[in-house]
């Protein structure tokens, strides 16, 4: 149980982000919350791939004893690759959201999410 603290940290990060999305009114804070959720999910993927006492799965700089008894001595590489993809996706989403927010501030004159309600009913 106590060894699941990394996963608890992941859940904490995800829900901190969700708190920002649900209860904050500033659009920029909502976007920050989405980035925090995404960091939590990335941390989750990385944490899944950890192996007790493993090293980074790169043979160039690996010590000879580690490379000799691979793969048992290396962390899982697939979650790291997935995380790389996920990070770039997050960058793209962030850029698009921020540029939309700039335009919205120009049109609405405010960043309050409660005033951004021309499309209701």
């Amino acid at each position: 149980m106590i060894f699941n603290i990394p996963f608890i940290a992941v859940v904490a990060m995800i829900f901190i982000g969700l708190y920002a999305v649900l209860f904050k009114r500033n659009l920029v804070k909502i976007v920050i919350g989405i980035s925090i959720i995404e960091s939590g999910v990335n941390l989750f993927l990385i944490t899944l791939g950890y192996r007790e006492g493993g090293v980074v799965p790169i043979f160039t700089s690996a010590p000879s004893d580690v490379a000799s008894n691979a793969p048992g001595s290396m962390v899982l590489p697939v979650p790291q690759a997935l995380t790389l993809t996920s990070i770039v996706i997050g960058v793209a989403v962030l850029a698009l959201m921020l540029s939309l927010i700039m335009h919205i501030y120009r049109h609405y004159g405010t960043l309050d999410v409660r005033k951004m309600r021309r499309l209701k009913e």
Partner: protein
Amino acid sequence: MFSFESILETLKTGSGFWDPLIWVIIAALAFLLIYVLRSFGKKEFKEKTEQTQSFLSGNPEYEKEQMRIKGSNVYWGFIETMKWAFNILRKIHTGNASDYVLWLIIVMGFLFIVVFITGAL
């Protein structure tokens, strides 16, 4: 893969069936019947006479522009009767972005409760 006979089959829907070709034939017969009935109409009807004027209890007829009903006034009675339902619906549809996320969270929690209870059985 493609068979021409399958075009003319009838669609079996469990207890019933549906064949559009029969429907088309019946519709054509119905239109023919309508035409026959229409041909029994009065012959002395004239266009552009006072026969075509609408009788508004002696009042002069408005011009066409004012006699038009706007789109939001159609079904006024129905909407007025069901006002309680429409008020609830209007209350749900707040155009607030974080409310959209809140609905996602609500559905997620509901599914968690339902599935964990039934999955534990």
